[in-house]
């Protein structure tokens, strides 16, 4: 076995083994902090393997390894394989996943300190399981294994959102996330079926013809809309903030929600054959980008702002992929993972300090929490795409490719979203770190080293990651040359304007009502109209359908069985009357039998 394969297996199975160990040995799990440290250890090993693997891949940028074993035997050959695909794309994502997961686990050591031991063990077991699931997805050589990982991360998301399962809102949020994504996952399942029926396999390198490719990619995109929280299936992501903040950072910012984008990047050969799907992606992506950005401007819960921001940024990625820019989508995915995770962890630090999610309970924290404030600022400007930050490179690339593909309206939407991104992040920063301190903020202080280390660790790629874009592009078989000219810097005016606008409204750090333009949208966002619509559809279709099926099952299927039983019983009762004990009846029966037999014999 070659080195890359070995490293990939280590990265994959060490966290898996830890998860299994913690799952099967309750006494170990219930120790709390020791179990947590074991999980962090596993994550460290996984990260180390990922780093080594990444370095190795850099040395052989165009290498493309595929190792698999036959799994489902079928008619001599194998129907599906299980294995590893090690190329630039999967290796890059592996590094991102393991790095963010490591940071989040270390952060959790302090953030979740006050949890009871048994719960803490459970939490870290889920985290180890997540690393395994996500890497199964990332390293998958075909769509079937990807589907396997996809479902597993969905499960992990459910488990972690509903970590505080005794809290009704958390339990509901977990179920909502699961249902919405599961609904979308039927698209993935159908895509697998269609692909298999047309090509006999689950490879994304096949060429089934434009029509089939369009159908398959549209179905795949349905799954992406659910998993990556695009409109209209974005409704689960804000609710998912019920989970612990580190979970939000890992799953619902950096990695799991990005799995949808990763799927599209991986199956690009198929999407390249489906122009229609790409068109759809452009419009849904850009709409989501600006739609979510608007809603983010009127949120008062810091996590919700970041959640809608994630929605919006995922929209950027989807739009970029729709415009044909794989580099744009993938690059933004990686940079976004870093600065969004950073922002969430920073928010976590603040929430931990003031024991509240609401920004009205924060304010003036700059004096007390300089480190958090600094990294939060770094994350914000990178997200906004200010010049020289990582976000700048990736966001610019997206805007450029959109413009190049000639789609003006989506480009304008993305531009508007960029403005709003800077605006709402500025709003958050000013409200949280400047201005007057609230009561709760009086006692704020930084967290322990376990919380500070990941913040610093993530701030580095969040700020500097952009410079390596060209370097890595070769690994992904893509051409990318960042241009250093005026045209490249022009779009950065937009975030600057956004920050200026935020400063003008919130510079004093006071919470002010939303600007008049946005007030109706704020109302709409809070009303949960889309949720009510979905609930209505479920009531009308789902419940009625279930009632019909239930009726069928209870009265027809069961009814047939009961009828058989009933017939047997009453038939028996009736037949019993033949045994009347009455001699004359018997005589009659004999006489009748003779008659019948004679008749039968005669008429035959």
């Amino acid at each position, binding site marked *: 076995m070659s080195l890359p394969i070995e490293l990939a297996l280590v990265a994959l199975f060490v966290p898996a083994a830890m998860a299994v160990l913690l799952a099967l040995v309750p006494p170990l799990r219930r120790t709390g902090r020791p179990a947590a440290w074991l999980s962090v250890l596993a994550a460290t090993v996984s990260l180390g393997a990922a780093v080594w693997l990444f370095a190795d891949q850099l040395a052989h940028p165009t290498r493309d390894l595929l190792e698999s074993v036959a799994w489902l035997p079928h008619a001599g050959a194998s129907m599906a394989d299980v294995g590893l695909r090690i190329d630039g794309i999967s290796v890059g994502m592996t590094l991102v996943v393991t790095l963010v997961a490591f940071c989040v686990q270390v952060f959790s050591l302090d953030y979740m300190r006050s949890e009871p031991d048994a719960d803490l063990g459970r939490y870290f077991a889920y985290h180890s399981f997540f690393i395994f699931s996500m890497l199964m997805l990332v390293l998958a050589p075909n769509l079937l294994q990807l589907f396997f990982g996809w479902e597993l991360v969905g499960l992990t998301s459910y488990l972690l959102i509903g970590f505080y399962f005794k809290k009704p809102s958390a339990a509901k949020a977990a179920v909502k996330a699961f249902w919405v994504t599961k609904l979308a996952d039927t698209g993935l399942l159908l895509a697998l079926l269609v692909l298999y029926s047309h090509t006999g396999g689950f490879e994304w390198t096949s060429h089934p013809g434009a029509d089939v490719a369009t159908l398959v990619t549209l179905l795949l995109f349905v799954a992406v809309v659910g998993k990556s929280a695009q409109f209209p299936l974005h409704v689960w992501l804000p609710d998912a903030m019920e989970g612990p903040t580190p979970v939000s950072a890992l799953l619902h910012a950096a990695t799991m929600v990005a799995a949808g984008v990763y799927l599209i990047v991986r199956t690009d050969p198929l999407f390249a054959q489906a122009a229609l799907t790409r068109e759809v992606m452009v419009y849904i992506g850009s709409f989501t980008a600006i739609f979510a950005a608007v809603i983010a401007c009127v949120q008062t819960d810091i996590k919700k702002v970041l959640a809608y921001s994630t929605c919006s940024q995922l929209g950027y990625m989807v739009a970029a992929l729709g415009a044909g820019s794989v580099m744009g989508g993938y690059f933004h995915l990686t940079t976004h993972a870093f600065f969004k995770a950073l922002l969430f962890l920073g928010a976590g630090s603040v929430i931990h300090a003031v024991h509240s999610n609401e920004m009205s309970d924060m304010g003036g924290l700059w004096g007390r929490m300089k480190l958090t404030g600094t990294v939060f600022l770094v994350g914000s400007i990178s997200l906004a795409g200010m010049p020289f930050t990582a976000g700048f490179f990736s966001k610019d690339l997206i805007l450029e490719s959109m413009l190049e593909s000639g789609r003006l309206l989506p480009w304008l939407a993305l531009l508007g979203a960029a403005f709003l991104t800077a605006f709402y992040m500025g709003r958050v920063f000013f409200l949280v770190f400047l201005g007057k301190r609230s009561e709760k903020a009086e006692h704020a202080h930084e967290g322990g080293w376990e919380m500070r280390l990941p913040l610093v660790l993530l701030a580095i790629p969040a700020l500097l990651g952009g410079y390596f874009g060209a370097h890595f592009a070769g690994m992904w078989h893509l051409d990318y040359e960042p241009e250093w000219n005026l045209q490249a810097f022009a779009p950065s005016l937009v975030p600057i304007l956004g920050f200026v606008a935020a400063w003008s409204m919130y510079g004093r750090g006071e919470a002010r009502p939303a600007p008049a333009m946005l007030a109706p949208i704020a109302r709409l966002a809070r009303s949960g109209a889309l949720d009510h619509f979905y609930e209505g559809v479920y009531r009308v279709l789902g419940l009625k359908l279930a009632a019909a099926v239930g009726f069928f099952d209870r009265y027809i299927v069961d009814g047939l069985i009961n009828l058989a039983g009933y017939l047997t019983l009453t038939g028996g009762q009736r037949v019993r009357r033949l045994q009347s004990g009455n001699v004359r009846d018997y005589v*009659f029966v004999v006489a009748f039998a003779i008659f019948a037999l004679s008749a039968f014999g*005669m008429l035959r």
Partner: protein
Amino acid sequence: MIDRIAFGIVAAALLLSALRVVTSKNLVHSVLWLGVTLASTAVAYLLLSAPFIASIQIMLYTGGIITLMLFGVMLTRRGEDLAIPNDTSEGGRALVLSLATFGLFTGAVVMTPLPLDAPSITVDTAELGRQILGPNLMAFEVLSVLLLAVMVGAIVIARRRDASVDHTAPGLRLDTDPSSEDGSAS
């Protein structure tokens, strides 16, 4: 011509008396009507050139059987009624069955090619005797054994048991068996 008239009369007599046998409300009347039926049958035998059998019929049936039946009726009377009741029930299904059977037999007869005229025959009773004691001797002897057995059996079944001298096995004793007194079925 004559024979058709004769047939018609005999047929009418037979059927009418038979009907009276099965529908009469009085048991004694039924027995007497049976006598008429049996006598009519004897006449039918005469028409069919079987005089010996006709005489046997008169002797055994109309003489013996009817007498036997009347004995039976008288010995098993309930109470002092002179009009002995003769109940029928379930007439519906009986009617259906009998009509169906009649239909079946008639159909069979009609569908089979049967001779229209009787061949000429010489009535020879001596020949009948030779037939019985010749090829069918075995049956004849068995018959006599059977009749002996029947005689003994009838006596055994119907004899009155003397309580003080009871040779029957305990389980077979009947009129001393208390559970049979009430006559109700279990």
